């Protein structure tokens, strides 16, 4: 697959017809699992991701216990069939890294100090993957934590920007991620308007970075609105059920 073969941008439109600052279609569902204390399901373009939360609960092994706060663990997992070339089950280095930065981002908003010595587990299951899964997973995870009733200072919406055929664009899909020049996923704490997850790989000048970063933050703010909406309507649903 030579990079020249595919024209990623044509007449100012992207492969799937989006403008540079368009998000893919996003659907967020809350409380989709019965066993998990909290859960959320997010469809985002062709991505399908489920997040589930257990805890606060007893933490094992014991040496991880912190008498000043809970320990938040996050496991990001790509299902074997979520990608075209089957992925061998079990954690690989990419999953371990994403799990680490996701746990750090979530730890930033969860009031861990309320549950000394406890463990809170966040499981992110990527069922279908099409670029940007760490953003989708984190977006689902903070909604699942809220659904679990765990006290948080804010949600953690996430979104990527990147550079494709020389243009800075929002929310890369698979072909853009594979053939583009740069990917920049980030996550924010909306109330502080500060950045809590940031990774980048590719080639960017400082000015391009500023532009991409701003675009991604705006995207994350839109995701934030959808997260809140989904949580609100889930609370309404609960009321109706009761």
């Amino acid at each position, binding site marked *: 697959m030579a990079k020249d073969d595919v024209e990623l941008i044509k007449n100012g439109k992207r492969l799937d017809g989006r403008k540079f600052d368009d998000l893919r279609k996003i659907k967020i569902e809350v409380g989709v*699992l*019965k066993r998990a204390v909290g859960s959320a399901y997010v469809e985002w373009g062709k991505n399908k991701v489920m997040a589930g939360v257990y805890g606060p609960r007893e933490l094992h092994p014991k040496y991880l216990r912190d008498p000043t706060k809970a320990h938040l663990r996050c496991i990001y997992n790509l299902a074997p069939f979520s990608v075209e070339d089957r992925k061998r089950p079990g954690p690989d280095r990419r999953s371990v890294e994403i799990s680490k930065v996701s746990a750090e981002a979530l730890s930033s908003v969860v009031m861990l100090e309320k549950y000394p010595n406890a463990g809170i587990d966040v499981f992110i299951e990527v069922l279908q993957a099409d670029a940007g899964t760490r953003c989708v997973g984190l977006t689902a995870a903070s909604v699942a934590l809220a659904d679990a009733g765990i006290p948080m200072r804010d949600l953690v919406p996430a979104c990527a920007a990147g550079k494709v055929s020389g243009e800075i664009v929002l929310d890369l899909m698979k072909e853009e991620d594979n053939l583009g020049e740069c990917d920049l996923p980030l996550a924010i704490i909306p109330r502080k308007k500060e950045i809590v997850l940031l990774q980048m790989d590719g080639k960017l000048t400082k000015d391009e970075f500023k532009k991409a970063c701003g675009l991604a933050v705006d995207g994350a703010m839109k995701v934030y609105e959808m997260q809140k909406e989904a949580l609100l309507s889930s609370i309404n649903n609960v009321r109706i059920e009761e």
Partner: protein
Amino acid sequence: MDIEACLRKDYITNQVNDGKRLDGRKFDEYRDMEIEKDYVGEKACGSALVRLGDTRILVGISLNVGEPYPDAPESGVMTISTELRPIASPNFETGPPGGEAIEVARVVDRGIRESNAIETEKLFIEENKVWIVFVDIHALDHGGNLIDASGVAAIAALVNTRMPKYEDDQVIRGEWKGKLPVKCTPVPCTSVKIGDNILIDPSMDEEYAMDARLTVTTTDMMNAMQKGGQGTLKEEDILSAVDLSFEKGKEIRKVIESL
């Protein structure tokens, strides 16, 4: 086992002895089962999501080209794995599959393999090259009876699996050529014994209260059986379970084949 668990087990057993199940079902009645084929149809060659009561199992099928087994050089290969993901239950851990996950995979495997459901002889490509069919069972929510939900999701996914195109010694991802050849639809049906009663499709609570468990996988014949649990079964218990499994298997098979 703590005291609360003991009391709960006793309560369920007493209810069952009075002819009642906690969720109001009859002993020979399955919970609602929804089968959604091609649930992750953009990437996987085949897939199906099964909701059985609170249980939710996603099966995805991936096809690769690889080497045949030396003792069957002209046949494709099927391999089934189960992951009881920690999202599905507070009791599931991360790490390689344990005894419970392996049992689910192997019971589902035996039903499909022994009924020759997949026509593996049609998966031969050329000398030393055959299709490998990966069946990945992914448990997302554990509400009891993982075996049946997994077995149904697996065969429903297989029945609807597309073959990737294969040209110039390469698998062309995203392009398809025909369907995976599947010639029958084995369905596992699981009963449990509680007191002297045989109940089909146990919920999680019923699994907890059961003495013994029996899975019977049927097509037009019996293809696989697996007894579980520390209790014993009488011959008549087994024969009841066999009858129930033939009957329910037929109903579920119709649903799968009409997807």
